[in-house]
């Protein structure tokens, strides 16, 4: 009754092609953004912001990156963690080389560095596909992880082998490093994620996104209708790695504060992949759902025993968490292969016809 497009006429192509063609969607997104930008910094505690919201946003961006590649363009990648690492290390090197430069610009540039490497490792995708490609991306994962340990130049010859985030300011306010307030970091992460999500949503609705989806659905057929596979796949790798790179840079600079090579190991790749699967392949909003679920689940599981007054050892909680995540993945695939995003869509459809069943 409330959520219905009846009576909303479009009189121009621009209105028809809008990101949110329905008025209620526009109001909804405005409310969410207002909440995220205004209400959250005012009301949420520092713990919530730095331990829950920032990680979810960072992982959402990484999941969007992988979703563009796997969900939209149909190329499986197990190298997400490594490309996030490339972004992080590139950003670290850039802050050392250009100490005066704006940190946001540096993060974007480090995303480009990740994109370049992603394109390089995407080259085999023309010859190989499916599982074979997944193995090829594992080559990227292990090779790059090795580089993070064995190339001392990347971490400025630190004895510890870790990268420490220096303090950088925007308009005199510290945004990175130990002095940055969680709220400042949160707002910066949020702004970047919102901007890049908006860009991605336009990308997937446009020419490039349609080419990706055609390649995903059947590459030979796509080739026959005149889509050049090679550039299409390479663009997918480049854009995906760009997103992952920016997410990696944000992860270290705005969340961790310091990182070592082990932060970007294969577990990170799998974790982002889980987020994408559970959230829904080929859905941007699903990436947020997936990130929120996979990151939020352990926090809830850790909190639950206290709520019920039962004490469970931390190790047990972690084991249970692995089991529950695994079971959830199988459950979601069996019940709804399209993931949480599909449930969201079903919900919206129900809302649209409410209070009638059809």
């Amino acid at each position, binding site marked *: 009754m409330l959520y219905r497009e009846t009576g909303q006429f479009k009189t121009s192509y621009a209105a028809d092609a809008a990101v949110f063609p329905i008025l209620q969607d526009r109001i909804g997104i405005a409310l969410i953004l207002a909440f995220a930008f205004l209400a959250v910094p005012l009301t949420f505690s520092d713990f919530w912001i730095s331990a829950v919201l920032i990680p979810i946003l960072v992982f959402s961006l990484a999941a969007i990156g992988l979703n563009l590649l796997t969900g939209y363009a149909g190329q*499986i990648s197990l190298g997400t963690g490594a490309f996030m690492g490339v972004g992080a290390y590139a950003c670290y090197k850039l802050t050392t080389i250009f100490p005066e430069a704006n940190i946001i610009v540096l993060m974007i540039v480090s995303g480009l560095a990740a994109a370049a490497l992603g394109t390089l490792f995407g080259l*085999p995708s023309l*010859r*190989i596909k*499916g*599982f*074979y490609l*997944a*193995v*090829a991306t*594992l*080559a990227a994962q*292990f*090779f790059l*992880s*090795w580089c993070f*340990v*064995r190339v001392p130049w990347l971490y400025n010859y630190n004895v510890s082998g870790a990268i420490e985030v220096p303090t950088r300011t925007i308009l005199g306010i510290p945004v990175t490093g130990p002095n940055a307030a969680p709220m400042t970091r949160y707002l910066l992460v949020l702004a970047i994620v919102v901007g890049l999500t908006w860009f991605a949503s336009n990308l997937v609705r446009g020419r490039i996104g349609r080419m990706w989806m055609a390649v995903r659905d*059947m590459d*030979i*057929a796509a080739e*026959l209708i005149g889509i050049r596979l090679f550039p299409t796949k390479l663009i997918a790798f480049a854009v995906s790695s760009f997103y992952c790179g920016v997410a990696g840079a944000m992860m270290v600079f705005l969340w961790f504060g310091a990182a070592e090579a082990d932060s970007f190991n*294969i577990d990170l790749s*799998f974790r982002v*992949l*889980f987020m994408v*699967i559970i959230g829904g392949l080929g859905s941007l909003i699903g990436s947020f759902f997936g990130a929120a679920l996979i990151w939020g689940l352990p926090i809830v599981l850790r909190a639950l025993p206290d709520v019920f007054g039962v004490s469970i050892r931390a*190790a*047990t909680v*972690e*084991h*249970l*968490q*692995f*089991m*529950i*995540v*695994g*079971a*959830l*993945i*199988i459950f979601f*695939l*069996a*019940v709804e*292969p399209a993931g949480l995003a599909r449930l969201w869509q079903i919900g919206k459809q129900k809302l649209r016809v409410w209070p009638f069943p059809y």
Partner: protein
Amino acid sequence: MDLLYKIFLDPFLQMGTAPDLLVQTLWEGLVAGVLYALIALGYVLIYKASGVFNFAQGIMVVFAALTLVGLHELGIPAFAALILALGVMLALAVAVERVMLRPLVNQPEIILFMATFGLTSFLIGFGEFVFGGEPKVMITDELYLPGGAINFQVLGGLVSLQKIDIAAAVIASLMVAGLAAFFQSTRIGRALRAVADSHKAALSVGISLEQIWIVVWFAAGLVALATGVMWGARSNVSFALEIVALKALPVLVLGGFTSVPGAIVGGVIIGVSEKLGEFYWGPLFGGGIESWLAYVIALVFLLFRPQGLFGEKIIERV
């Protein structure tokens, strides 16, 4: 020039001057290769029969080995524990078929592949929950597996072969021979190959998919148990094995996803080239290249032969 010399000439000079070291390295590569091949074999079995790329094979190896050692720690004699562990793997196969494969019949391969990720995560949690995260020592003596080493005089040097490695190679060959015979000449083996060719056609001649899947997953569990015992005898039984199992992926790519001999040959090629690369070229790059060399070899190989050494030619239709 110096670099070129170090890459193209120096390693071969080293090989020439110290042939015993070369033989030792080759042998170590061969053994590592056999073990990779064993893991790869588990993947191939399931892929051949159900078209599922079972990512969980690595964790199944760990899980099988942990079950064996864990049962023995409870005071059950070694061989009874072995049989019980087999029973656990059978139960796992039945459960996987019931809970995972049956609801996902007719889904695209990629969905099944991702479901095995879920299985991996579940088994990691379950394994640690039941057996704890600490590494365990494999019960080699109780299973009458040989320990110690044999030393050979080769070309003026000393080469030492671990007995357990020889046992691993023997068991691997026996298992491959057994599986080949099973596939070729038994009734279930024929049904298996029929299922691999086409699910629908197999169903229409009265082959039970459920039964076949249980058989296949159990066979993979059996291979996993054997692999777990062998790996466990070389190092400890721990969850780190799971990462080693990822090494089987380049083996698989090299040999082809559908070929049993491919898994063996691929395993040996990867194992040998990895060890040679690490030993002779590794120092040039600062060492540790073992972690990615196998993948890069597979990658380069794929560019020339996308279906692997022995894989069936990939024919695609619109």
